[in-house]
């Protein structure tokens, strides 16, 4: 069904995540949506993948795509998963919508030998610009109005760096991208999406 997936069919962040995942490894994708990332990793890297998803429609899509999916609410932690039982645990663009933000990152570090966290960088200049202009930012990565946004814990790259430092989390690698292109100059200003490869120190 999904055997002939082309890398270009997928998002740039998927390609970066694929670079951080070992061939044939075991991957847990938290908030896996319809299972696209897992399918991509399965077809390109032959991973053994599981997704965690709360939403009924996404769960059904995963089952339609023959993607292993466990229906549960990440806010409750990862109690069904053993310590260090996955090579990589991924939380892709979901961190900002979590209530128990700190808890889920620590849970990921418990379950995964490495973790990958990606989130929209609130420090991106367009967001700063809109705030300077007196409005809450609305953009492609933050497509919500202040009153209907699921995002309750937005942060900047500097904020997350400090979070990692304070929680004894080692940043193995960090990539920042804007519109699919990597940003190395002033990432907290010019980067739209932050991607971290982390492990417990």
């Amino acid at each position, binding site marked *: 069904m999904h055997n002939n997936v082309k890398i270009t069919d997928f998002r740039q962040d998927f390609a970066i995540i694929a670079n951080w995942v070992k061939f044939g490894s075991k991957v847990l994708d938290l908030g896996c949506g319809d299972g696209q990332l897992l399918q991509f990793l399965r077809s390109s890297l032959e991973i053994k993948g599981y997704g965690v998803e709360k939403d*009924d429609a996404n769960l*059904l899509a995963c*089952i*339609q795509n023959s993607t292993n*999916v*466990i229906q*549960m609410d990440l806010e409750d932690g990862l109690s*069904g998963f053993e310590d260090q039982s996955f090579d990589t645990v991924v939380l892709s663009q979901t961190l900002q919508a979590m209530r128990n933000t700190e808890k889920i990152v620590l849970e990921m570090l418990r379950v995964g030998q490495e973790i990958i966290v990606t989130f929209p960088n609130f420090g991106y200049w367009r967001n700063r610009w809109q705030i300077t202009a007196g409005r809450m930012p609305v953009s492609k990565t933050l497509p919500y109005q202040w009153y209907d946004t699921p995002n309750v814990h937005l942060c900047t790259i500097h904020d997350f760096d400090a979070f990692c430092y304070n929680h004894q989390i080692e940043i193995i690698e960090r990539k920042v991208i804007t519109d699919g292109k990597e940003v190395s100059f002033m990432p907290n200003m010019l980067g739209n999406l932050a991607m971290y490869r982390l492990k417990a120190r």
Partner: protein
Amino acid sequence: MSENNSVGVVTPQTAHFNVPLKLRSGQILPQYDLVYETYGTLNAEKSNAILICHALSGNHHVAGKYSEDDKYPGWWDNLIGPGKPLDTNRFFVIGLNNLGGCHGSSGPSSINPETGKRWGSDFPILTVEDWVDSQAHLLDHLGITQLAAVIGGSLGGMQALQWTIAYADRVRHALIIASAPNLTAQNMAFNEVARQAIITDPEFHNGDYYEHGVVPRRGLRIARMLGHITYLSDDVMGEKFGRKIKDTIKYSFDVEFEMESYLRYQGDKFAGSFDANTYLRMTRALDYYDPALAFNGDLSKALSKAKAEFLVLSFTSDWRFSPTRSREIVKALLDNESTVSYAEVTAAHGHDAFLMPDAHYHAILRSYLSNIQTDID
């Protein structure tokens, strides 16, 4: 569901087995009958068979009807048929009545060929493991080496789980619905009350009531009434009956509330059609099932040899087989890196939800089943 996606008129068949069945209790069933029904066509490779395991009061009549004007189709007719989630255009579906049952398979109310009399209290107590062994013999009889899937809800889910443990090579997929890896003390307690209701009925006669030409109706009726309370959620009972009064408050112990009317109706209907000895044995099979017991309570170890792919389903309002229990199965499967998906279906109907045609629930089953390959070699 429209009429034209029914499997239509079906006829049960009986398979007789002369090879003795060794039971977990140490007893031996020298010979036995299994009554079963099949729907759909077994393909040339015999790779499209799906076994349905029934729950406490179920039987082999899973889908279809017995005559054109039969008003009561099989107990899972909403799931099984041409174009239905379990599509009989693709799959060959087998339903059977478990041993100890009262719908045609050898059981307490059937004739013991050695004595020419009804088995009654002499019929052994079977376990989930014994049933699965007997089901494997039925597959041998049908020439089926490997099941595309085994599906069961509740006690049926325990059988599906047991299939993956005892016959790991003979089952490719297991769908375990509203089930548990063993019963909690509270769940067993309900069974004990049900059994006590039957056993203390003066017409029980130690299980040999057939000889006396009576049946312990009162006990069986109360057992079933209790069961029905636990199969529904508080919310659904509230919604369905609430405190609605049938007629008027009469300051009596007659049926005054709608809920009482429902329970009495269900109890009467069941007591008139089900065998008390079977009920006792089915509840015991539930109590005894505990695959982790032999592994110091470690379910992960118990499931370590399973090769099947799993779909585990639970229902949010099911408190008799709660989602927590299904999650224990999922946890053990994850520990073994099994292929598994788990859905926790939002449903109001409690344990009964697994028999209801909820759209999302059926969409999950349809999707999962449609991905099961039948063209394997």
